[in-house]
């Protein structure tokens, strides 16, 4: 019942204020209503009024009227605290499942007062506390827990304040049009690459394993300096060059079909190796059912692979 009401409420808000990447808080999208302390306060004022009336005590009556007036003024102050603030959502960084994604929002108060004690959070997420000064934009990272891979939509951001007296809650729900790509969770496992026999022509005896040291050979002009075996030089044995396997190895492929694990686990292991191989700057390709990404290295390649894994639809 409650959820249904809430859904209606959010539907209604969305109608008034459609999805966007930029919002300015104003009377169209700000709502004010007393919080629980506000209602307790109203009861308190009523009690004071009753005491004042029953004892025919004008000072207590004046106190009750004064407190009611403060309540009314607090409504305006709570509204003014948020009114005029502009929010722009920026591109967020991708994360892996179960990490906390952070949507970056730039906030700026246009009024002289700035904004005091503002709380921002996504629906059902942790909140952060923000203080704004006049016309000084700041960027805040608003966290959102990730539960599954794929596109994480920003959705409804709550911006609320109880300033100045905690009686009145002024808030808004902003439906931000922004998304973050969530990569699969990293799972440590054996490399899902085809065995050498499977690949066929490779019989050089060199495993397509990585950057392992494979021995020394005599130095030739043009060899990279960092590959010179300086220890051997120091021992007076002359110039030698370290041999690395990948220099002569064949292409390395990560293949989805290499294991019979559940889909998500396989994707996790693939993601793990994508990250691991990228860290050591190796070239690799990714075979994902009928999608194949040719071997390459670098950040862009890594992102492309992870994106493919994140958006992989197992039903195809």
């Amino acid at each position, binding site marked *: 019942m409650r959820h249904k009401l809430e859904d209606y409420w959010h539907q209604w808000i969305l109608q008034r204020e459609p999805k966007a990447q930029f919002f300015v808080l104003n009377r169209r999208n700000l709502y004010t209503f007393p919080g629980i302390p506000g209602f307790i306060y109203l009861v308190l004022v009523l009690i004071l009024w009753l005491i004042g*009336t029953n004892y025919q*005590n004008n000072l207590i009556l004046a106190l009750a*009227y004064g407190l009611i*007036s*403060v309540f009314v003024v607090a409504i305006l102050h709570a509204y003014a605290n948020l009114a005029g603030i502009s929010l722009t959502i920026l591109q967020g960084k991708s994360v892996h499942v179960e990490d906390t994604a952070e949507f970056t929002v730039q906030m700026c108060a246009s009024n002289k007062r700035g904004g005091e004690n503002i709380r921002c959070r996504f629906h*059902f997420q*942790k909140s952060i506390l923000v*203080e704004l000064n006049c016309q000084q934009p700041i960027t805040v990272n608003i966290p959102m827990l990730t539960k599954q891979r794929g596109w994480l939509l920003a959705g409804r951001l709550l911006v609320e304040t109880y300033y100045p007296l905690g009686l009145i809650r002024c808030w808004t729900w902003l439906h931000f049009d922004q998304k973050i790509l969530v990569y699969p969770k990293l799972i440590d496992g054996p490399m899902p690459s085809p065995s050498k026999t499977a690949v066929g022509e490779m019989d050089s005896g060199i495993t397509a394993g990585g950057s392992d040291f494979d021995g020394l050979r005599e130095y030739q002009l043009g060899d990279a300096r960092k590959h010179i075996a300086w220890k051997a030089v120091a021992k007076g044995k002359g110039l030698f060059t370290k041999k690395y396997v990948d220099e002569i190895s064949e292409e390395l492929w990560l293949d989805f079909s290499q294991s019979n694990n559940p889909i998500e686990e396989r994707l996790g292991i693939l993601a793990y190796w994508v990250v691991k191989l990228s860290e050591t700057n190796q070239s690799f390709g990714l075979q994902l059912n009928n999608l194949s990404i040719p071997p390459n290295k670098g950040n862009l390649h890594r992102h492309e692979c992870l994106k493919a894994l994140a958006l992989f639809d197992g039903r195809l």
Partner: protein
Amino acid sequence: MKIIRSTRAEIIKSENKPSSTAVSVSTPIRFDAIYWILTAQALVIIPLLWQLPRWLWGLWALAIFWRYAAQKKWVNPSGNLLKWLLAGGAIAGWYFSFPQRANTDAMVGLLVMSFILKTTECQTNKDGLLLIFIGFIAVAAQFLFNQSLASGLYGAACLMALLLAWQSLYFTRERPLVNRVSYASILVLQALPLMLLLFVVMPRLTPLWKVPMPEARGKTGFSDQLSPGDLGQLVKSGETAFRANFIGEHPRPRDLYWRGLVLSEFDGRSWRRASNDLNIVEESPQSFDQLIEYSIVIEPHNQTWLFSLATPTQVKGTGMQIKKQEAGLVAAENIIFQRTQYQVISARSVFFPENSQLSQEERQLNLSLPKDGNIQTRALAQMWQKSGMDTQQKITAALELFNREFVYTLSPPVLGSEVVDEFLFSSKRGFCEHFASSFTFLMRAAGVPARVVVGYQGGKYNDLENYLIVTQADAHAWVEIWQQGFGWVMLDPTAAVAPNRIELGIDEALNTEDRSLVGQGVLSGSGWWLPWEKRWDAANFTWQRWVLNYDAAKQKNVLERWLGGSDWQSVMKGLFVLGVFFSVGFALWLYGLRKKPTLTAEARLLVPLYRKLIKKGFKPKEGESVMAFLNRVGQICPEYKIPARYVAKLFEQVVYASDIDAMDKLKRAAKQFPHVVRN
């Protein structure tokens, strides 16, 4: 008002606790907020603690010490045995200190106690908020005990402190005092008009149900019996009894006999009120003349009787029921525990029918004397009676007796058992109660119905607000005598001895030695502070009349004067007009704001520079940037070239490089332009 803020915008913290849809207010309370709450609490409860059992001071000290210990991490702030012991002890203490647990004192005690105990249980903002709320009720409790101008101002200070504490709960972080006070003041100033409006127009209701009234403490005043020496004690107090405001001319001093009580029973030493079961039907006067209209603001005296002049014909209380009683007295329905106002119209002359008679019972009451004692006085009176003197002659004889060799003094010798005889025939020195008492005795013994009246005589005018202030030093006793055709006639034997007492006041009637014994009331001193004292008392009186006594009747008057009617339609009409007025004002203000775009912080620094340049004849063009303008100034006037370029460079640094140091330099350069002071 400029509000200082830190130059950086910042994100304070992100909370690790996931919050659900329900909004949690339970952020942990900051230290500065706790200090503010404790300060406000001290201000609020100190006046209440004076009225309550002494051990509450101890409880307060313990609670503060506990708080300190918790801060120092000597004790665990959340839940430990010590705290519960404190709470348990306090509840037990309350249970035994207030045997009647339903009266106002007990309730206020409970309130203060919980206010104090709550400070030991204050971890989150929610707790802080609750403390503030209790604080507001405690301020109301202050007003319950005392509503004077001073306590009103003190209460306002308490409220301000509470507001400051309250605000500190909802600031993102600690702020300097100036800052907080300015915020709170803005809030108060904005709330004030609405509060005044509500105070003036909200309907005043009569009490919805009966509540236990708090007792006024230690108030001086009359009791309902009069023994020799009682008034002599009373006049030593300088406390104010009441203030009276006359509508129309001031009565002459000799008309200022404020009647309070009529004492008709004499036991040989003390005069008492006649017991209530005597069913006395008084003949009411035929007609009145020479009316005096006045209102009185009486100080609490814990009794029901009120004071009035001559014969009251109409009485009306403010916020309480008052009624006329037999013997031309006025009394309130309940005891007077707080300052109260009432209005009276009195008649100085009353006319009785020619043949009016005292009822048998009343005649008997006012002639009764103890069976024996005071033989000499009785003998004298009987001699007058036998010689066939009429009432008037007997009075004259008695007054002549007093006039001959009696002395009016505040320190008469102590009298033995034969009070009247000793006074009349040996000591011959006395204060007004001695004269009144012995005069009445003489008259009764001589067959003339007579009674003693106690009250006040005279008073001092405060010309600032045109009211009369009557203090306990004006306490007085006199006599009333029944005369055929005139009714009860007032007679003051003291006037025969010391006429100055009546015309000039008690200070003038006494010798210097005695004068020092008389209580120094308001306006009786002569120091440099007298004008201030006068002003303060006048402010108090105005406060009483316009704030404390603003009741349904006054409200009706005010509304009729300002709105032309006190019915709800008129009030609505008035509010509507007021609303339209304010809306138009607000709209105009907003329009003014829109025309003047708000400047950025950097641009504001350039305002003095622009003013200077405009005065010199340079005018910024529409849409011209700061740089372009300064550049143009430099080109037109070569001597400004260097300073203009300097300012432009600084401005650039501030705007594009967000250089905070450059901001200060820019501020200085703009002020000192065209002089360039580099440092």
